Every structure is written in C-alpha cells, then in structure tokens.
C-alpha cells in the first residue's frame, strides 16, 4: 500500500489486521485501529468533502477531532468526523456534499 512508512529510526508500527472498506464504492485497504481519514491519506485520497456554499474541496486539517474539516458520510450518516472514526470491515464511506441531510 502506498503512503505508509515502512521503516522508521525511532518507531515500530504494529499495524492491526487488514480490513477492507469502501470509499465512493471503491475498495480501500486499511489496517484495524487506524482512522478513516488516516487510511484515506495513506491511499492518496485528500478530498473528503465539498463545502456547502462554494462547493470547494475540503480535506483533513487537524486530525484530532477539533476542526470539523474532515466531515464525511459514513454508513449513511453525514457529518461524521472521519479523523476520529476507526475503520471497520465493509464500511461505506462517501464524500460529503454540502451539509448532509438530517433524514
């Protein structure tokens, strides 16, 4: 998988077992324990949503659940912070267009 650090002088990455989930119906490989946003960055996917008014692309900014830039539609639920949501086998992740529907 691209975008993953293979060797590091200080850290050892103990990655969880491989899981697959779907981003815009495309199959994405990830590791258990990592967030949706991290898995998408590892796969070179930066655009996580389009903004409500100007329809500009938006991506990950703070990665620690503060800034709300990474809101996505996860398993049909809009406005989910993808940086705080761990990947699950078979989950469906979509870019959020605008504010997301309440129902």
């Amino acid at each position, binding site marked *: 998988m691209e975008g993953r650090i293979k060797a590091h002088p200080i*850290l050892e990455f103990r990655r969880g077992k491989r899981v697959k989930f779907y981003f815009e119906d495309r199959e994405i490989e990830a590791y258990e324990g990592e*967030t949706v946003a991290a898995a998408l960055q590892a796969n070179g996917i930066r655009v996580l949503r389009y903004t409500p008014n100007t329809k500009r692309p938006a*991506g990950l900014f703070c*990665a620690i659940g503060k800034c709300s830039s990474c809101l996505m539609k996860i398993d049909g639920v809009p406005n989910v912070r993808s940086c705080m949501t761990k990947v699950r086998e078979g989950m469906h992740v979509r870019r959020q267009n605008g504010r997301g529907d309440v129902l």
Partner: protein
Amino acid sequence: MKSYETIVVGGGPAGMMAAITLGSKGVKTLILDENDELGGQLVKQTHKFFGDHAHYASVRGFEIAQKLQEKIFQDTNIEVETSATVIGIYPNKMVVYAKNGKEFKATYEKLLISTGAMEKQLPFINSDLPGVYGAGAVQTLMNEYGVMPGRRFLIIGSGNIGLILAYQLIQAGAEVRGIVEALGKIGGYAVHAKKIKRLGVPIFLKHTIVRAIGNESVLGAVIAKVDNNFNIIPGTEVEKVADTICVSVGLTPLSELAEQAGCKVEYIPQLGGYVPVRNERMQTSNPDVFIAGDLSSIEEATTAMIEGKIAALEMSRNFIKIAANKKNIENEINDEIKTLALFRSGPKSAKIRTGLEKFGINIKHVPKIESYGVQIGPTGKLRAIVDCTEEIPCNSCEAACSFGAIHIGENLNSTPVVDYDKCTGCATCVTACPGLAIHMLKEDLENSTALVGIPYELLPLPEKGQKMWALDEDGNYVCDSIVKRVVKYPNKTNIVYIEVPIEFSRKVLSVSFPKKESPFVCRCEEITLDKIERVVDSGITDFEELKRLTRVTMGPCGGKNCKLVVLGILSRKTGVPISKLSHGTSRPPVKPVEFSLFMKGSDPT
C-alpha cells in the same frame, strides 16, 4: 449516573499527572478522554523531552505517555473512560459525555479540566485546499498511524512544533523544502533549529505564505518577504514546489468546557488566547473547578505535568481529613510551585511570565541563570563538545554524566559547563541530549585527522568503513569522510564516528550519505556524467577507449546526441582542445533501419 470525588476531563500530560496524583492520595477519580488511549499529544512525539530527571527528560514523548498510562492502570482509585467525548458541563456539577453512540452522565465534587489546545488558523489564499494540514495532523498521521501524507513539505511557522515536525518528516523519509517564518528570528529552541539546519532544511525568515497552488490538492505555494508590519513586499513572491503544506503558527487553548463549568475566562495573548482566570494553585473563579496544561497557557508537556500535579494536590486537600496529611500536601504544593517557577525562569518563558502576571502570579526567588559559550576542551583528547548556548529549561546532560563532568547548577536554564579533567569520552551525554547538541571530538595531530562523533537518528545507519559526506552547521558539504565506528544505543540516538582532515575538525557537525545524483550524458546507453568522469579520472583519455569501456556514443543514435558532450568532458579533463581530439569513425547505417533491408539485397534497378 455515577458520582465521583473528582473528574478529570482530558487525558494528556496534565490530566494524566493529575489523575495519578489524585489516585495516590486515595481520591476516587474518573479520567475521560476522547481518544482510544490516554496520552494526548504525547503519543505522537518521537523526540526526547527537555527538562530534568524527575520530569522524564531524555525520554521520548510517546514513551512518557506509556509510563504515565502504566501508573494510571495500576491505581484502583482511578477509573479510565477512553473514546469518551465530553460534550458539555452543566451547573449541577455534571459532566455529559458520548461513548459508542450513547450519552453518559457523571457528577463530581471537584473537577479538573485539561482539554489542551488546538492549532491556530492562518488564512491565506487556498488555505482550505486539501493538502494544507495543521502541523499536528501530520505528526498524528506519521507517528501514530505510520502514514506519510506527502513527499515534499513546506512548513509555515518556526516554533518548536514546526521545527520538530521538519525533523520528524526527515526521519520518516520525506523531503522538507523549507520553513517559512514571518518574524526576523526563529521562534522555537535553537537546538531544534540547528538539528534541521544541519540536515540542509532552509528557514526563510521574514517570509510568509501568500497562497497555496492547486485545484483539488496542493501542488505548490507562493511565499513572499514581509516588512516589519508583516505586510507582503510586492515583487518578492516566489513559487515553491511542495505537495503538502503544514501550518504551525501556534496553539490556542480550548476553553469551551471551562466556560460551561462556570470559569471566568480572559483574553491573554501571551498565554495563547482565551484562558480561564486562575490562581497559582490552578483553581479557577469557580472554586470547585481547576485547570492544567495547555488550557491554562501554551507551554511544554513538562510544565503541563507539574500544573496537573499542583491542581491535583490542591483538589485532594478537600478529601483529606487528617491534619498532618493536609500539612504534608501543603509542603508538596509549595515544592511543585517552586519547581514550576524554575522551569519558567528562562528567557524562552518571558511571554508566559508576562501573561501570568495578569493573574497576579509572579515568578520570584529563583537561582540565577549562568551562561557560558561553547568550550573546545583540550586538543587530542576524546571529549564531548557541547553546543548548547541558549538558556532553556533542561539539565539532561548533567544527569546523564556519571563522572560529574557536566555542571548546570541549581537553575536548569543555565547552560552546561564541561570539566574536561573529568570527561572520559564515554559519549553518554551525546545520546542523552534531547537537542542533539553534543558531539564527540578527538584530534590526531600526527596523522592530521580528527575523529568526530555525531548523534544520528536517521535510516539507514551508516556502516564502518563507508565513505560519507561530512557537512557543516547548514548541511553544506565540507569534505569526504570515512566511518570509523558506529555505536548503537537503546534509546535510538546512535553515534556515527567519522574521520575528517584535521582542518575541518571544528566545522563538521553533520554527516550524510554522498548524494549520487548525476545527469545522463548518453541517453541511449544510459551513461551518467559521473561514470564518464570516473573512467577518465582512472587514466582513460582516448575517445575510442572511452567508448569501448562505457558504450558511450554506441547506442541506436550513433552518438548524435552525446558525442560533443563526451568530447567536451574529455577536453575539460585533459586540457586538450576538442579540435585536437580524435572523434571516432562514422560507419553506416547512420539511422536505425531493419536488418531485413540488408538481407533483401540491393535494388535490382
């Protein structure tokens, strides 16, 4: 709904230390954190921390988090709730949090809020473009998840976070194109800045970012010079190629929950923004609510831990009935306040001191800070050279030296003094120094060489006998060197000893693998300039011989592309003008044609 004597909101260094302290005093405590493990931002810090032995100096951030976690899990007085997002605090001493999609409530008698901080925004054109990250986000991706979000990085802001990020990116194998800083000087610690300068990262002072370039993702940036009022100087704009921009222009406290808990807040820019009003013992305007860590002022994890301890000790007084124990706690609090004052007595804490004065908290009666320059020591002896001249709160070298050869003294902001009679050349201080500011040196006057021992935290690790480049303080090439010895240490700050000519003994501060990039001269046969030069340097000065040895000019183009370039190299190396050199013999076919052409024979007409 559960009730607790104390609740701690936020499990970073301040909250963890508070919980440990409360637990140790027998106070029933709940610690809540949004992440699935405790540690806050320590978990993504790979560098060794400054400070003193009692506060985990020389220990890497993520390892401090592990040590604190162990203490918390051992204590039955402490209940831990992770993946628990506190969404509000209500007047009836109730904390409401969300976990696994459900709402939970808990009440407290005393509350500690240690929610930390978040990154400040810097609006520039396209600052919302995917690929512009907060510096902390990139640290999270790299160091927690092992994910590298880009290849070429530009960092905005030269505070400690920006400087540390640059170093961490290089450790993880990325390229850092530079750090942009609007001020005329570097914001963070000098030792952090020197670490990355030695690796060749430029720092653009008095510059700002004008815009990010790209449509759906960052492709580059425009930076420009600024005047003393931070206005962009027209005409100084330059484009930088980068696929990722990291913003690290400071942090601002997250005071929302404190406000909900009835704490009065004030805007104090020196402390980072809106901060709860509090006294020396971390008690806010609501006597039942305490704060600690970045929420009270943007500082280091060390001061956050001390604040957490002070707050917890003060909170625990409420639950202790025996007078003698109360008195002991009073003494402990006073000791911690003194330690904290010591940490904040250096020049780098001037801003914090000014901010705290607005709450009537003054730092007084600290031992004097003594400063010394870099000492060279006796020539010819294997010894430590300490390049640490900025007064920062750290005495890890003094603590590391078991021979008493390094002295810092009572105020840990003082700079180190080396007693070279006592220095044995063991290099323990080199591997302990969080700033990588110590290296080893031994001159050999007989052979006119010097042995330089450089702390090394990159991959791959050089090997004995390897030829390396020796670099100066800005990462510029100084001379070639040979690796004489590589010493590995358990803390992963290894030392690479290289031999250099003696005249460079004071100039060499860094080491890198030789950069092998060389342009292709012969594109058909893929021969580089470097290869041709090496063959010529070995004594081959005849064009025909050069051809046979390298196959240069012998590919499908028949030398049309490269013959003149090769002759130019030969001429430059030998001093013989091209007109006097043999340029080989041209033979048919001059263009590539099919073999079948010859097999069919000549045209009968």
